[in-house]
């Protein structure tokens, strides 16, 4: 199958979208950005190709009529099991890497206590793994670094209390090892993991026994399809460092503009809040960029700010929005300096202000900055599309809706659950067009 791929190398996350020759989105992949850009791009692309494969499974399974109403349950189980296999595979790697790291002489004073503590930690992390991927389970993040990291640190804090090994040492071993682990791509084992996930699924869903062999054949058939990387376009903050030629690179402004246009044809204004930058883009009816504005060098009020806050409060990024939504009273916060956000938070908490209220104020402060950038780019025109990671945060979205209404009246606001992929979608579209020979003009 011909695959047209867009990769958006962002400052926090790297996203990839796979498109087929008819401009259908086949798969999406995401990973955390890291110092090795090639790896980040590689992992995101790999993830998107896995997602594509799942799309093909889904299509194929529809043919297995015998599956009937068990189709959904089957796909869901298969996917979760696959994620679990993937997680376990990396966990084993992490365990080995940590163990090796712990043999370093600098930890020798802790002796065998350390290796005991470590193996204790990993035993629990591994035992608890299936729960994380149980049906309906909420994960704090989609990234191995975060999921494993939070499991590891919670468990090791407890372990450290009982054993004689300080928490700091355990944490340090993790910090050292995770870098190595996340810089490996596990491409070869993907198919094995899939097959293992299938086995697990068939065990977990005994009802399916009658159709098991038929399902297995279909899965194998899909695995046989070659996903050919026909054309790849890179974009995003780190694009200059991608090993791509100039023809394969587009500015993130154009990609976001086009991506938003593809998602919502009538979009005129696009706001993207990512980890380190905020962009306001005005596009015309064909998705062509009319003007754009970005935040200046100060990173205040971008997504990373929320990251700092979440760290400071020891909650997951996903939980920030819901906490802020509980706010009942308005608190005005003026400083959006990312670094001092934590200090302000503490200041306010010590003055007795409520956590939800402060968080709501912080979200509003971020959106206020975005509003200024929007205003600078020429305001908000119908329809308005909000993209980037921060669009996943309901408190940010709520503040945005309020402020748009206050300042620009009734405007249609589009927010796609997949909005974080907007740039990559634009990139994939450019990739498809490049092969078709359409320079930049919109076809949609």
């Amino acid at each position: 199958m011909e695959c047209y791929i867009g990769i958006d190398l962002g400052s926090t996350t790297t996203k990839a979208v796979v498109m087929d020759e008819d401009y259908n989105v086949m798969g999406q992949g995401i990973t955390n950005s890291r110092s090795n850009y090639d790896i980040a791009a590689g992992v995101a692309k790999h993830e998107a190709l896995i997602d594509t494969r799942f799309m093909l499974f889904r299509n194929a399974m529809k043919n297995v009529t015998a599956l009937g109403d068990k189709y959904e349950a089957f796909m869901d189980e298969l996917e979760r099991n696959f994620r679990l296999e993937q997680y376990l595979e990396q966990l084993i790697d992490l365990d080995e890497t940590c163990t090796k790291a712990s043999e370093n002489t600098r930890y020798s004073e802790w002796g065998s206590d350390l290796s005991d503590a470590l193996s204790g930690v990993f035993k629990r992390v591994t035992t608890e793994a299936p729960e994380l991927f149980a049906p309906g389970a909420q994960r704090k993040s989609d990234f191995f670094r975060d999921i494993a990291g939070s499991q590891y640190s919670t468990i090791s804090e407890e372990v450290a209390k009982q054993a004689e090994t300080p928490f700091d040492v355990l944490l340090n071993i993790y910090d050292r090892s995770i870098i190595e682990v996340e810089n490996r791509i596990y491409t070869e084992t993907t198919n094995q993991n899939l097959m293992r996930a299938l086995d697990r699924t068939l065990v977990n869903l005994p009802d399916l026994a009658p159709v098991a062999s038929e399902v297995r054949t279909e899965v194998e058939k899909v695995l046989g399809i070659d996903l050919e990387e026909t054309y790849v376009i890179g974009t995003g903050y780190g694009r200059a460092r991608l090993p791509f030629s100039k023809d394969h690179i587009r500015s993130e402004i154009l990609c976001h503009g086009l991506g938003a246009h593809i998602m919502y044809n009538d979009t005129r204004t696009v706001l993207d809040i990512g980890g380190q930058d905020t962009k306001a883009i005005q596009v015309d009816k064909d998705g062509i960029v009319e003007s754009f504005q970005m935040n200046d060098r100060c990173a205040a009020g971008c997504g990373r700010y929320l990251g700092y806050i979440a760290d400071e409060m020891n909650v997951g990024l996903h939980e920030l929005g819901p906490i802020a939504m509980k706010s009942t009273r308005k608190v005005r916060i003026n400083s959006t300096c990312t670094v001092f956000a934590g200090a302000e938070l503490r200041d306010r908490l010590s003055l007795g202000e409520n956590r939800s209220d402060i968080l709501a104020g912080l979200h509003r402060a971020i959106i206020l900055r975005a509003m200024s950038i929007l205003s600078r780019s020429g305001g908000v025109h119908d329809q308005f599309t909000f993209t980037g990671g921060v669009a996943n945060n309901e408190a940010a979205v709520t503040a945005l809706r309020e402020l748009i209404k206050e300042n620009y009246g009734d405007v249609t606001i589009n927010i796609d659950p997949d909005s974080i992929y907007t740039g990559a979608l634009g990139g994939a579209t450019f990739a498809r067009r490049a092969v078709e020979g359409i320079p930049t003009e919109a076809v949609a």
Partner: protein
Amino acid sequence: MSVQKIVDRCQALYDDLDFTVVKEWKAKEEGRKAIGYMPVYVPREIIHAAGMLPVGVIGGGDQLEVIHGDAYYQSYICRIPRSTIELGVTGRLDCVDGMLFPSICDVIRNLSGMWKLLFKDKYVRYFDAPQTYDDKIGGKFYVQELRELIEGLEELGGKKITEEAIHNSIAVYNENRAVIEDLYAYRSKCPWKALTSEIYLLLFAGMVLPVEEHTQLLRDYLEAVDKEDRPMRDNCRVVLNGTFCERPPLGLIKSIEMAGCYIVDDDFMLVTRWLLEDVPTTGDPVQNLADAFLHHSAETAAKYVDSYEAKGQFIVESVKKYAAEGVVFAAPSFCDPALLDQPMLHTALNDNNIPFTAFQYAENSGQMQPIREQAGTFADSIKLWSA
């Protein structure tokens, strides 16, 4: 009236971002007009003589959500023009019929042009002042500037501004200046009674109230506060400098007081104390205003000091006059005039063995902890080590 009541009233005026009192004043009589200005210096007497209300516009403070204003300014430009624009584009300044932009700095100068582009139907004037103080040269230029202002306001108001009217207005403002002088003298005598956080609000009230009413309000305050029994604290006495253009947040003033400093002189809303002597009420009033400006006006970073020797003497004098123990410089971030001026003032203070400390603020600064710390250390060092 009790002190609390007066202060509450001023606080309400301070918090009102919609200039309701101005609207009310205008509504009282058909055809009334209001003229906005940045309260560093403009000859309010002339606006008053035209029968109009001078309205001091000093940004939006820390409660205004600045959305559009930020769209017009880079991050390295001070706050006040953005909140002023915000007030303008959100219609809050619709109640002023014209704006005067005195020559304070390039930011305000350029803001005058922006106002022209943004509010095409308003009277907008950049009010230039001479930086050379020879009567025959700078004086002549300034008199002509004043006359052009008079003509402009006459046209806007549709009626002549008589000499007599200007004389009267000068008298009214002389009176206002005199009460403010009393207020400052009183605070210097009993800084634990007339708190600076209150004086600041009182001066702010003068930005939006008719001058006659303001004068009365100040008198009431002086009378009421003298009767109050307020605890005296073990604080040191400081002159606050640098706040002449962008308003410091009230929290900043309170933080300085809380950290152990009594402010005994300041440069808030200088327009109220710009002219240092009574302006004569006989003779050519325009000439009188020009003379006062050229020869008897306060020093700020916005004004050229024409000799090396005189530079910084104004603040040294103020320290002596108000028996201050030190100077606290609080300049708005990115304020070129104030920040470039400071090293020279530091030299003058050093030469006179006057201690000082310096920090920056913005009208919407929320974090007072570093400021408390710096002011507190300054106060600690004066308190622990003096005498």
